[in-house]
């Protein structure tokens, strides 16, 4: 798996190059249920204007860079995309410093393996990219970190693909409290647990769903179910209950130093090697929002990335089982 870290302050040629590279695959995915199933450009843009007005100019700029086509613009709006699923575990370290650790469990063949560092609209953001401007986890210059896990429910509704919601939060919010308000307000098209942690160590987890109001909780741990397991086979498959129980044990029974806490994510039962089933752990990310730093980790290797001194680069990662 080739991982890249790319930095570009304002939307420009680098982003445009990335788009050109990823678009054929995304287009195939986005059209897999037929073009007419997806909202029109007018609907998509209207939804963005209604729910995330602040980032509409950025969206328009990116559409331009993507070539100005109708399909690309509709895809980039993240409005009512095809459903997608993932695994994932995330938790807030119970020590003094604000630290968030998460595993992203997914299919390696449907993943950007890209860290994007940007200063769009004057706000620094770095994080793990999805869909070219969406994020599955990230941190911004105000010291706000964010991460998502799939909520383990099959319901699909009208709303945005969650990676864009994460991008929007990082573009517009500075504290966990502000993020909570946004997460409660913006419609999501599937169920996700989104955890935010700010530099003052305030945190919250929003259990978002398309069919009921978001539940803002003080959960320090999120795996792949919400209040109850609703999708039984997915829960069993991804061992979401065991992972949650295990993480809660780590939080309450131990006084783990930071390093030990992070280490737990790189070992079973949190670390999954079930790549054959599409839910292997692709990476572990560590966010230290006060320091504006993140790390990507794999068993035996660490890739530190800093917002203040972001260095582009790449890593060839070989994980047994993840071809």
């Amino acid at each position: 798996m080739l991982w890249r870290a790319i930095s570009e302050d304002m939307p420009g040629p680098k982003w445009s190059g990335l788009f050109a590279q990823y678009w054929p695959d995304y287009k195939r995915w986005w059209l897999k249920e037929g073009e007419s199933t997806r909202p029109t450009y007018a609907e998509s843009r209207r939804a963005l204007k209604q729910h995330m007005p602040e980032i509409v100019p950025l969206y328009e700029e990116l559409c331009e860079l993507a070539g100005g086509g109708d399909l690309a613009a509709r895809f980039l709006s993240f409005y009512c995309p095809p459903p997608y699923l993932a695994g994932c575990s995330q938790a807030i370290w119970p020590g003094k410093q604000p630290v968030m650790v998460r595993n992203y469990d997914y299919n390696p063949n449907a993943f950007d393996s890209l860290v994007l560092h940007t200063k769009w609209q004057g706000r620094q953001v770095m994080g793990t990219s999805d869909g070219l401007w969406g994020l599955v986890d990230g941190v911004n210059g105000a010291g706000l970190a964010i991460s998502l896990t799939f909520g383990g429910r099959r319901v699909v509704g009208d709303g945005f693909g969650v990676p864009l919601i994460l991008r929007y939060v990082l573009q517009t919010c500075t504290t966990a409290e502000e993020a909570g308000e946004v997460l409660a307000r913006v419609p999501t098209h599937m169920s996700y647990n989104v955890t935010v942690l700010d530099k003052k160590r305030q945190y919250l987890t929003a259990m978002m769903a398309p069919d009921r109001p978001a539940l803002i909780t003080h959960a320090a741990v999120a795996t792949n179910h919400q209040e109850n397991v609703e999708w039984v086979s997915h829960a069993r498959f991804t061992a979401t209950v065991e992972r949650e129980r295990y993480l809660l044990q780590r939080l309450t029974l131990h006084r783990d130093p930071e390093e030990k806490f992070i280490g737990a994510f790189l070992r079973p039962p949190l670390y999954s090697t079930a790549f054959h089933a599409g839910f292997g752990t692709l990476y572990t990310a560590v966010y230290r929002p006060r320091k504006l730093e993140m790390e990507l980790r794999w068993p035996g290797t660490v890739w530190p990335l800093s917002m203040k001194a972001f260095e582009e680069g790449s890593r060839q990662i070989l994980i047994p089982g993840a071809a």
Partner: protein
Amino acid sequence: MPKWQNKPTERTDHMTTTVLKNISEIRRYFHRNEDPVYFISATNFNLLGLDEWVKNFKYICYIDCYGGKHPNVFCPSEQPHAEFQSIEDINNYLLQHKEVIDFIKRRGGKPKFVFLMFDAETERLSKELGADVWFPKAKLRTKMDNKIETVRIGNKAGVPSVPNVLAEVKSYDDLKKTCEKAGIGHDLVLQSAFGDSGHTTFFIKSEADFRRHEHEIIGEGEIKIMKRIDCRGSAIEACATKEGTIVGPLMTELVGFKELTPYRGGWCGNEILSTAFPPKVRQKARELTFKFGEQLRKEGYRGYFELDFLIDKKTGDLWLGELNPRITGASSMTNHAAFAHADAPLFLFHLLEFSKKKFALDTTELNDRWADPSMIDSWSQMVIKHTDDSVDICTEAPETGIYKMLEDGRVVYDRFDYHRRAVESENEAFFLRILQPGDYRYEGADIGILVTRGRSMTKSFQLNERAKKWIHGIKQTVTAKPLPTATAFADPAFKIL
């Protein structure tokens, strides 16, 4: 017609004995019970041995602790299911399993169900199967189980709780302010409204302690905040019947021993012995439990319940810890003490209360008899959990039966038995297997329950040497293999652009 075909006893039973007048008649009534009674739970541990007092009593369990060798334990073959989040989930799974439904139908009669835990869904499923749940409604039990409600009932009954304040907590500073106002200091024990043995009891003295539990405290509504007192834990079980509350003996509690449980403050066993507490304390506990039971009846609750009393080490004062409106992990102790064999196990009175059978009983006389130290023999039980911070897969685990401790301290399997009273001496123990080969062994996973004659604690309530040897001996016989792991290789060979 030969005389023996007349079945004269049955006729008299129906015609003359409409009211059960004494223990003998109550015992006979259950020995001739026709309608099937089922205890449905993860294991049959809590009501171990009850099948020998009640005809047609069966256990329906998720885990077969006996490898198919217990005649009254029925375990359906496992089918795919969601990971259980609670005992209620297990029961609801069992009640929807075809083999369970077939089993119940095949045995006929009007089934009666008893559970350790159940919810509204369990009640619905039971109704669907035409069964009566022989417990007060889940809704009422949930209400009673709420720690805040327990304090209220205790206050009404004249059973005092540890100095406490009920409040919502927003932050550590907020908590400190609340406690200053209430004058209970900063060395605290917090409990959320629901929850059991250590999972929802938090010891908080510093901000670091608070951080570890803040996700369980903030946003959870009213929390019971108690002054931390230097005390011993004790447990007592009782049964609220229409003839008055019947009170079992005061038991010690094994709490938070690191050899047994990773949970600080977590329950890990009990002892029953007549001299565990001074006579005055025992008498007081019995009185308070009786009063509490009478108050429960006024609140509409009836049947089995358990109270935890915290006994102040210095003053001997008794404080109400918590109420479990149900059978518990200690029920097996109460129902196997000498008095239970001499008269009847306490749970039999629970069944009697729900059977609608008329009975007259002098509960005062019974309570007085059970208060007699000679009615109590010494036993102890230890719930052995995996306490290491590791996860692996069990390959071998000791099976249920009677174990012997050899001269060199090794613990060896001696013979199969499912009766705990089959333990002959202090060199023998009954072990009930919970962990099975193939199961994950994780921190907090139950390995099994060990029952011995005699004490497992010293006079100062520490684990004694013999108990430690037994725990070590059992744990030694568990083997496991590691989980598969991955190693990734990263190559930062080139820079792009």
